[in-house]
């Protein structure tokens, strides 16, 4: 056996070991099922493909939770994990699904909007594959996904993504970004089918308010804010003023730009009667100049490099050694959603939506996010849905 042959065999073995070890991890991540316990307010659970047949049976199909009140009223749609690497969204959505009681109108929640993205990762950035939220009964494990859908599910990527219907040109990556493919089309790319199905849901169900939950870098100007088009601007503005004065956190308002197409806050408003809002909470994990992308950074948002940049006034949000915790982000989202519904209801009495049992900012910071999740081991099997 020559020396060269031994070297080549050894190299092949090393490569195969690394490939198998990482492949097993990626496989487990992609096939991990998140148990969601339908709370007492959930009246039915359907699939998004019920609104777009061409989505049925694809890896992009996802669950839709309905909470219908005894009294007729307006309807709110909450969309979470449009970008699955912004997980405060799904954590807030699950608080609503597992706790909310709807007295009037309806609440519809899609907790994992880009289902394919939630089974994707960003190895180049060293993303963690999972994160755990401590609860009173142990910890609840979540998949940490990526911004875009997995190329395994939507292949091949185009050279350039041509937005439908405006023909604006985007990066090829945005073909897999469900916040660039609105309003979508029935027979387009898989992600266009996802957004088309959501548009159909809003049009057929008569949704009044749509809230798309996100997270953004502290170094990005459109962070810690509510983005709204002109028709939703007044409600966004009064909501921002009220949470600032009564709940003590800042959440300014950004206008939705008319010429930037494909975004939920733009296209939902332009292609339906629904009033859209997009919520951004600061997410230090997404900033580029940080230390390793660890689970701790994701959960507490503490980073020495961002702290240094904050002292140089390079960030768009106040930032100190306490970081920007998951509790703060989820708390902001819950409070802003509740206030948006409240303000919509005050202006549209006949379409009002009354929701209770959802904690606000201060309560979530005090008790932690996990306090509001039910133990799947103790829940009725028929009330558990895997996503």
């Amino acid at each position, binding site marked *: 056996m020559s020396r060269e042959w031994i070297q080549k065999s050894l190299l092949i073995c090393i490569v195969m070991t690394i490939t198998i070890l990482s492949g097993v991890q990626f496989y487990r991540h992609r096939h991990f099922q998140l148990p969601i316990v339908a709370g007492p307010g959930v009246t039915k659970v359907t699939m998004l493909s019920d609104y777009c047949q061409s989505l049925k049976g694809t890896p992009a199909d996802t669950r839709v939770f309905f909470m219908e009140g005894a009294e007729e009223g307006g309807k709110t749609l909450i969309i979470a994990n449009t970008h699955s690497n912004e997980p405060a969204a799904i954590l807030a959505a699950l608080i609503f699904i597992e706790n909310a009681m709807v007295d009037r109108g309806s609440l519809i929640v899609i907790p994992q909007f880009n289902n394919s993205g939630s089974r994707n990762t960003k190895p180049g950035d060293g993303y963690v594959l999972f994160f755990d939220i401590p609860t009173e009964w142990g910890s609840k494990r979540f998949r940490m996904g990526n911004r875009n859908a997995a190329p395994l599910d939507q292949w091949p990527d185009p050279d350039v993504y041509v937005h439908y219907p405006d023909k604006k040109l985007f990066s090829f990556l945005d073909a897999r970004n469900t916040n660039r493919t609105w309003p979508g089309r029935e027979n387009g790319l898989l992600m266009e089918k996802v957004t088309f199905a959501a548009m159909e849901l809003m049009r057929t169900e008569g949704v009044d308010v749509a809230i798309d939950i996100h997270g953004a870098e502290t170094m990005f100007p459109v962070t810690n804010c509510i983005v709204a088009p002109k028709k939703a601007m007044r409600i966004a503005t009064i909501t921002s003023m009220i949470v600032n004065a*009564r709940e003590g956190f800042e959440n300014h308002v*950004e206008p939705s730009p008319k010429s930037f197409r494909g975004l939920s806050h733009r296209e939902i408003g332009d292609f339906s009667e629904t009033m859209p809002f997009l919520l951004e909470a600061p997410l230090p994990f997404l900033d580029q100049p940080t230390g390793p992308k660890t689970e701790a950074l994701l959960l507490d948002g503490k980073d020495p490099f961002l702290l240094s940049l904050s002292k140089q006034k390079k960030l768009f949000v106040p930032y100190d050694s306490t970081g920007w915790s998951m509790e703060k982000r989820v708390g902001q989202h819950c409070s802003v959603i509740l206030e948006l519904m409240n303000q919509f209801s005050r202006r549209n009495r006949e379409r009002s939506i009354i929701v209770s049992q959802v904690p606000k900012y201060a309560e979530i910071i005090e008790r932690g996010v996990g306090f509001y999740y039910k133990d799947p081991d103790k829940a009725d099997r028929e009330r558990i849905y895997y996503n």
Partner: protein
Amino acid sequence: MKKFSSLFLTIIIFGLIVSLASAQTEPPKMQLPVLTTSAGQSADINTLNVVLEQAGVMYDYCDVPTVDMVKAGVGLGGQESGSGFHVEILTELDKYPKGTAFKSIILAIGASLKGMGASGLTIEDELKRVSSLIKYCTENKILIIAVHAGGESKRGADGSNNERMIDAVAPYADYIIAVKDSNKDGRFSKIAEEKKIPYSEATYALDIVTLIEQIYN
């Protein structure tokens, strides 16, 4: 030493209370009809309009009114919204019919390059427009209220767009309102003191609602 420190602290706290009390004055009384507009085209005009709505004060709004539109009074001479130009006529027309002269104007101060760009304006155009508006209002006894609700994000270094906009409006106002975060360096209270302009400071933008209710009864 301890006694000296606590005495020193008491003097400082007392001094702060006195200076705060002297900076803030009783809000003046204003009359309707009122026009709201922006000085700098920031989104703070939305905050101002929502504040008026919450206070139950109906208004006419235009993002870039000219002197001729103000001269035309309520209804702004029949102007309608178009590209980069927004008008809302919400004044109670049974009380103040179209053409009734405005008695007051509220300017939301805050410079936004994006906002000015959308209206096809440069900072120089906007300063010129705002100055001509203020000149007309002063000459015609239309009382001017300057509102700064944007906090620190709508402040800047000396000579920045935000500071130039403050200089163009605040010293000529008949009443200044600023949120606490906007006046951390005492910019507005100093202008008010020097120019003898009534001044109110609101902890949050939502608190401006009460001030507007007070001045318009």
